[in-house]
């Protein structure tokens, strides 16, 4: 199962095995990782699952879709590598993925 590392705003890292086909958001929810809320359950409607993909992985996850971008642009913590984690589907290719979680989601 792909291993995903979630890093909070203080730099604490949490690792989780997330099944292929789940979203990065679901991985956080199922592992009780604070910092990704996922209020709308992945409907791309709440932006409480904002994450910043570590540079080295951004090519593999790909950039945010237009819809995601519009949701993200209003976040003060938006960066070039920002994604809504509910829109990143976990694949074998993403084994080792590292994402950062913004302070505002605590």
């Amino acid at each position, binding site marked *: 199962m792909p291993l995903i590392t979630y890093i909070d705003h203080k730099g604490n890292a949490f690792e989780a095995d997330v099944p292929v086909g789940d979203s990065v958001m679901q991985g956080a929810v199922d592992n009780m990782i604070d910092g990704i809320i996922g209020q*709308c359950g992945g409907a791309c409607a709440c932006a409480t699952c904002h994450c910043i993909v570590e540079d080295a992985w951004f090519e593999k996850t790909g950039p945010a879709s237009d819809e995601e971008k519009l949701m993200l642009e*209003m976040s003060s913590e938006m960066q070039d590598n920002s994604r809504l984690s509910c829109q990143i589907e976990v694949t074998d290719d993403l084994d080792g993925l590292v994402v950062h979680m913004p302070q505002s989601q605590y």
Partner: protein
Amino acid sequence: MNSDSIAVIIGGSHAASQLIASLRQEGWIGRILVISDEKQLPYHRPPLSKTYLSGEKTPENLLIRKPAVYEKLNVKWLLETHVESIDRATKSVVLGNGERLKYDKLALCTGARVKKLAIAGSNLSGIHYLRNLSDAEAIKKDIKHGGRAVIIGGGYIGLETAALLRKMGMAVDVLVHSSRVLRRVTAGPVSDFFTRLHSQEGIQIHTREKPDSFEGDKQVESVICASGKRFLADLVIIGIGVTPNTELAEACGLPVDDGIIVDEFCASEEDRDIVAVGDCAKHPSSIYNRFLRLESVPNASEQAMSAAATMCGKIKPYAVVPWFWSDQYDIKLQMAGLNDDYDQMVIRGDIDNSRSFVAWYFLNGKLVAADCVNRPQEFRLAQQMLKNGINPSPEELADDNLGVKQLLELIE
């Protein structure tokens, strides 16, 4: 609280799922028992009227958390089990078989149930409601490409379902008792927009139609309205609102008024060992200065966080800006705030000819809500403005030539 303390949760849906997680996060070291009369562990209800009927998702995809998560959190489940009553004197809940289970802290997460339409013929097959996964499964079996569907009720669930069935190749009529769709939740011009949207997609919306009876042999064949009009139907879905499940609370003497009355910490003032969360609860809103009972996932999950703190002897008041979303065709509607009381509304964007605009609502010059159609940026902006009590003028908000970034500067 110690490791022998017992938290009992009645109901196993959105409110319960978050409450369990938050209880552990807040440091509840005692036992957790959840009693739910459904078959499944907590699942997402919103997709039932959005993607689920069209087969895009399986029941497993709908689960809010995986079964293993609850095991890790050491939660005990009594599924398909109904709680009959609460005995506050002995701090126990009573099941259908007479069994009594003790609690130290009790959480009422009983939600709401659909209102039923009691008219002639309502027992015919092919007539459905949509609240639970089992309802959705039953509807799925009756969806036929080329068949006719009649939706009774012009609320979100009715319209979302109508859109789905249309996409799946059914002819759809929507019957609305009042003068317009979404009357309870939005202003006239926004209702008009949705009526136009659905007619552009090939759906007929009929206002001021009151169903009087269903006709058919075993299977429903038509809906007859008080006006005398007859609508042919292979499938009928009724979505005329819900009633909160407050009977347990009322019977044990807790204050109830269209919702179990709680304080800002989700506790009943009558008995602070009992909290109520989600669709069944009525809470005081410091933002709107009145008691509110909301029917939304964000409300259920945020209240659960506050209730969990209360159950652990901590303090975390519930004070958030309500919000809601709905998906129909290529439309994402996101609403922030409450628009049931306003004296001014302005529109940003072209509500008449496009599928992208915002309706801003004001009361006494104060921004109280926004309905955003395919405007996620403005939606997020509205959430921030409402949360921080920021009040740009109606003129500024209505000016679509001012970019969202410029609006953001106004509030910063």
